[in-house]
């Protein structure tokens, strides 16, 4: 346990370890837990039980949560389908739309830095005869809308493009994409997992037909998510991917995770309430972190657009230092790296490579994910730690030494195996 805290003003400078990986997941907000607790203990009814009060109170709680989730993205309660999380939401949206609209065409457009839940769902559809266009991204991580326009065909059924990227926090031009799709009668799904609750997102103003959301990225519980599916102008239909008792109007069978859904509702309501203020606060912390690192270290670069970016995300490469060794030196700080060594495949991040980064720069990247519970003192601690460890590792780095001596590393004949 860390220090015992009585009041907010009694915060210690920093308690270790520091969690700064809020794009991976977020801690449960105590207010969310409080809202969930009755549904984990005394109010255990099945929301589908229609003939007693246990069922009714569960159903009421789910309905209230549905309003809260819909409210966050400007939809209506009837347009929300609860799922087990964003991976399921992405699969349901993409496969469900593909199956339902098969007679309309055989073409889907997505882009290369999507989450694997989207990319792999598209790959599955390719095996079933669909054609999928994977749009490239520009150096700043955003797609070129002109390129999307050229990719759209008469046979295009669906465009699925994320609102914000999980690694680099870069925002795609959702409204522009949505408008383009709407004008052409193409359905538009967006993976809004990282964006929802962190930035303004409105399914009406942004012309979104389907959107995936997850609870645990916004201080809610793991194992619960939602899919927004538009009900009018146009009415979007999806084919269920899980069959059973006909829950969620038949689109997603399975007993509802009432406590999780209540938590997700509360998490959405809190995120909406605090969105602007929290966004400004996180941006301030993020910029402070960036400024410190850039002031003290040379050969650092930000990966992805700074202008179009989630407030809490900073993805930086500390060139000539390998990411895993950097993480090893900051073992009291939880962040992520795009280094191959931290992935199961031993391949560096496909997202960073899509920006045109060389493997060596991708290997040097760290993702800082700031969140609701990060304080300024933690940012200062992390900045100081990164600076210290990068300096230590550059003392050890033959590449850094060679560059200092004026060697062009791209001209060296490396003896790679």
């Amino acid at each position, binding site marked *: *346990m*860390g220090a*015992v*805290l009585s009041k*907010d003003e009694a*915060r210690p400078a920093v*308690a270790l*370890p520091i*969690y700064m990986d809020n794009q991976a997941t977020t*801690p*449960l907000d*105590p207010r969310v*837990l*409080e809202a969930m*607790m*009755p549904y*984990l*203990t*005394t109010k255990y009814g099945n929301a589908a039980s229609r003939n007693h009060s246990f069922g009714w109170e569960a159903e009421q709680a789910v309905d209230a949560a549905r309003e809260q989730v819909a409210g966050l993205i400007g939809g209506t309660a009837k347009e929300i389908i609860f799922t087990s999380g964003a991976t399921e939401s992405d699969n349901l949206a993409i496969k469900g739309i593909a199956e339902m609209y098969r007679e309309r065409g055989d073409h889907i457009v997505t882009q290369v830095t999507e989450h694997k839940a989207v990319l792999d769902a598209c790959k599955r559809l390719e095996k079933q005869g669909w054609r999928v266009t994977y749009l490239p991204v520009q150096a700043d991580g955003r797609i070129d809308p002109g390129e999307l326009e050229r990719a759209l065909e008469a046979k295009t059924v669906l465009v699925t493009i994320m609102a914000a990227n999980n690694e680099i926090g870069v925002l795609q031009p959702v409204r522009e994409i949505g408008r383009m799709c709407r004008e052409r009668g193409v359905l538009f799904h967006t993976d809004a997992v990282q964006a929802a609750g962190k930035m303004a997102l409105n399914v009406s103003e942004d012309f979104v037909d389907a959107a995936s959301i997850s609870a645990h990225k916004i201080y809610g519980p793991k194992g619960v998510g939602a899919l927004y599916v538009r009900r009018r102008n146009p009415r979007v239909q999806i084919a269920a991917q899980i069959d059973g008792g006909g829950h969620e109007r038949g689109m997603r069978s399975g007993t509802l995770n009432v406590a999780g859904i209540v938590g997700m509702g509360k998490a959405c309501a809190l995120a909406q309430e605090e969105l602007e203020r929290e966004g400004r606060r996180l941006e301030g912390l993020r910029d402070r972190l960036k400024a410190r690192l850039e002031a003290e270290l040379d050969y650092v670069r930000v990966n992805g657009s700074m202008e179009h970016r989630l407030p809490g995300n900073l993805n930086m490469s500390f060139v*000539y*230092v*390998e990411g*895993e*060794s950097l*993480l*090893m*030196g*900051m*073992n*009291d*700080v*939880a*962040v*992520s*790296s795009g*280094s*191959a060594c*931290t*992935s*199961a495949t*031993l391949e*560096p991040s496909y997202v960073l490579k899509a920006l045109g980064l*060389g*493997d*060596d720069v991708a*290997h040097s990247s760290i993702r800082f994910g700031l969140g609701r*519970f990060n*304080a300024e003192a933690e940012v200062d601690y992390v900045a100081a730690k990164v600076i210290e460890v990068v300096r230590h590792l550059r*003392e*050890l*780095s*033959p*590449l*850094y*030494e060679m560059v200092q001596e004026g060697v062009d590393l791209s001209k*060296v004949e*490396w*003896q*790679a*195996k």
Partner: protein
Amino acid sequence: MRAGAAGLAVWPRWRPVHDNGELKSGETTMAYSEKVVDHYNNPRNVGTLDKNSAEVGTGLVGAPECGDVMRLQIRVNAETQVIEEAKFKTFGCGSAIASSSLATEWIQGRTIDDALSIKNTDIVKELSLPPVKIHCSVLAEDAIRAAIGDWRKKNGAE
């Protein structure tokens, strides 16, 4: 009845759930042996020898794209064939740094023939490297061979 009330009273107000002393860095959990951590924190024989000196052999192996580059340098007494000094610099993960640091420790004071008998499996064993890190030890062995090869070439032995 409020079943949650008792639990919530002790709930930290601003650092919930992850404050359990355990830390997960990156996408996968990684455990390092004590020896790897020691070499990482206190690397032995970091530095640079004059690569133009006839006494010095330099081995540069790996590639930046692969995430590992090791440079190992040796100063050899031509008469005794003993490696009197070894220095390294490594770009790579903690295991790569430890493997090359260990290699300099092991070869210093040995004859070059003796140094060539060091196998990557010896390094794996000493540092308790997991299977995914075996390539680090291979690279260290390659670096020793490359440095010795360079010295021999300079000194007309090859």
